């Protein structure tokens, strides 16, 4: 176990715990909006941490070829950047449609049924 291996394992373990937390929140929360509150942040950050650990592993343990040292971490960096842009956009689209269609919302006083005047 070199210090690089310990750092990689720790980063990936934090990412896996975040993804597990997001899934449990998706299973346990009562409402569409609270479920999206749980999964929208945990999934993006967990995925980014796992791929960041893999980038560290690849830079230090890859072969001497150009493909292994440069191109493969660049591809994983592309995946991280794309998901950091695409995941909040998808979450915003789902939330906007759920508000337009007037999905019932959970509050502390009970379920909020949308009235006629209360729109968007």
């Amino acid at each position, binding site marked *: 176990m070199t210090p690089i291996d310990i750092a990689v394992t720790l980063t990936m373990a934090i990412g896996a715990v975040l*993804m597990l937390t997001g*899934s449990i929140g998706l299973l346990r929360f009562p409402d569409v909006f609270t479920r999206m509150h749980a999964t929208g942040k945990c*999934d993006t950050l967990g*995925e980014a941490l*796992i791929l960041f650990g893999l980038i560290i592993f690849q830079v230090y343990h890859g072969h001497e070829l150009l493909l292994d040292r440069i191109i*493969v971490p660049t*591809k994983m960096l592309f995946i991280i950047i794309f998901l950091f842009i695409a995941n909040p956009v998808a979450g915003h689209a*789902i939330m906007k449609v759920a508000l*337009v*269609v007037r999905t019932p919302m959970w509050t502390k006083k009970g379920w909020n049924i949308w009235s006629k005047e209360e729109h968007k």
Partner: protein
Amino acid sequence: MVFFEVFIWILLFTAFIALYRAVFGPTTFDKIVAVNVIGTKTVVVLVLIGYVYSRPYFFDIALLYAILNFIAVIAITKYIERGRICE
């Protein structure tokens, strides 16, 4: 030594938890959110599979799957909101 297969099994377990919400979700949006979550986990699992089998081509498949997942969510939400996709 880092054990990548352990992380693959943990991510498959979390995807299996999210599959309950994708099948039995009360509203349509629960199902869309669950499918989005499973797609995000699938990207990470594909990258880890590329490490376990030591083939770097799986990263291209992971990037393509991320783009497909995003386009699917945008198309479904636009269809529900406006009634049609192209206008």
